[in-house]
């Protein structure tokens, strides 16, 4: 049985590796852990099973300080964001095997576009998920007061954007007063999403409620914004019962947090302007409404006054007309009375004449003329034979004279 020392074996492995992997290779992986020691960066690289969290490959890697500086010059601030736990990266590595220290991947280069692409893919998937869960318009349906004045600001206390925001609000030209309370949270790095989400939940749970939550952050690199594409953070913001306003400080593309927010603005300063404008707009509406009310009441007054004046004019005229009318009627009556009276008299006369005729016809003279006689005894008309007792003197009147006779 052939025997080898460990050194011999390792030396053999090193040779095999050196022969088979003479040049650096590009490897896609995820940075699992990252440690900094004396300027060198020690990485633990992993590959996880498709769609799961199980690690199916793992290797240690190192980014020497010298190489780091060179890469920093090339990628500037982006490098810091690439070298984060949880970031998917495409690394150019030299496979180094040392008999004493074993296998180590030495990082030679990093592909920025790969990570950007990975982030973009992840972002799209998150967006799709938020859409399906109907969370995009959720926070937009919360009620933003007409004049939001109590503001809970989630920001990093050292962020330049926060200072701009507060100054802009305090120095507004209308003299509106705002209450601003800052709830600190990291605005970049892997802790940012969880810290921001925790503050959102904290603010929502406070008994004395705020009018709105403002998430404020100054400028930064595109990769910095990955924190604001975080699914959990977006869900928390979308479900927040208070309106969430964002001013995350970016120009080109919106982050997912902007899409779930009540109102997304480009910078913290823009959020402050938005709030001031909102108050100013309401105030000008109120002033306008006041003017309109004043105008309308004035019109109402003048209409009413005009009506009263018209009545004041027309009432005496109507009364005078009435009186005149009555006077005319009396005049007419006055004229009508004499003819009426005359007519009445004439009628009376006619009637009297008729009565006269009737009376004449009925008179004793008229009867005597027709051949009748009138007999009286002692001046009384004798209308019965009994009145003519023996020895009585009867006076008989004819039409042409009177005869006295004695009853036998």
């Amino acid at each position, binding site marked *: 049985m052939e025997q080898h020392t460990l050194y011999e074996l390792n030396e053999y492995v090193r040779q095999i590796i050196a022969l088979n992997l003479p040049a650096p290779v590009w490897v896609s992986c995820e940075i699992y852990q990252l440690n900094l020691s004396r300027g060198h960066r020690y990485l633990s690289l992993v590959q996880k099973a498709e769609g799961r969290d199980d690690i199916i490959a793992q290797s240690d890697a190192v980014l020497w300080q010298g190489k780091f500086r060179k890469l920093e010059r090339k990628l500037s601030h982006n490098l810091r964001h690439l070298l984060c736990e949880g970031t998917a990266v495409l690394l150019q590595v030299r496979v180094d095997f040392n008999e004493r220290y074993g296998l180590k991947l030495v990082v030679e280069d990093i592909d920025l576009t790969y990570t950007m692409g990975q982030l973009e893919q992840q972002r799209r998937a998150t967006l799709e998920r938020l859409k399906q869960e109907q969370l995009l318009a959720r926070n937009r349906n919360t009620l933003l007061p007409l004049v939001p004045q109590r503001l809970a600001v989630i920001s990093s206390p050292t962020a330049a954007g926060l200072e701009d925001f507060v100054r802009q609000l305090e120095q507004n030209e209308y003299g509106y007063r705002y209450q601003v309370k800052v709830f600190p949270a990291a605005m970049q790095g892997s802790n940012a999403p969880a810290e921001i989400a925790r503050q959102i939940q904290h603010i929502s749970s406070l008994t004395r409620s705020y009018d709105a939550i403002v998430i404020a952050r100054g400028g930064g690199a595109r990769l910095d914004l990955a924190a604001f594409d975080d699914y959990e953070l977006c869900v928390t913001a979308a479900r927040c019962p208070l309106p969430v306003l964002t001013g995350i400080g970016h120009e080109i593309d919106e982050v997912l947090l902007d899409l779930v927010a009540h109102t997304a603005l480009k910078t913290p300063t823009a959020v402050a302007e938005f709030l001031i404008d909102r108050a100013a707009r309401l105030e000008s509406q109120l002033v306008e409404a*006041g003017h309109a009310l*004043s105008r309308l009441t004035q019109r109402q007054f003048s209409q009413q*006054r005009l009506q009263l004046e018209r*009545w*004041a004019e027309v*009432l005496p005229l*109507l*009364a005078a007309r*009435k009186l005149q*009318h009555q006077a005319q009627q009396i005049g007419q009556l006055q004229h009508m009375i004499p003819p009426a009276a005359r007519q009445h008299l004439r009628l009376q006369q006619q009637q009297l004449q008729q009565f006269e005729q009737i009376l004449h016809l009925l008179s004793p003279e008229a009867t005597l003329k027709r051949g009748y006689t009138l007999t009286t005894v002692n001046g009384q008309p004798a209308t019965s034979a009994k009145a003519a007792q023996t020895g009585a003197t009867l006076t008989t009147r004819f039409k042409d004279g009177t005869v006295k006779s004695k009853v036998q």
Partner: protein
Amino acid sequence: MKITYEEAIKELQETVAQLQEDEVSIDELSAKVKRAAALITYCREKLRATEEEIGGLFEG
């Protein structure tokens, strides 16, 4: 006068209409016209007072 502005205006309208339609007898004419004049004075005063009251509300 214990009457609202609305009631006063309504009564004035009715009085004017009655006069126009010649529905007022001479016996009531004087009383009616006096009442109407009083109502007009009352309405004018009420208008002026109301105007003064709200006049200052929209200034400043």
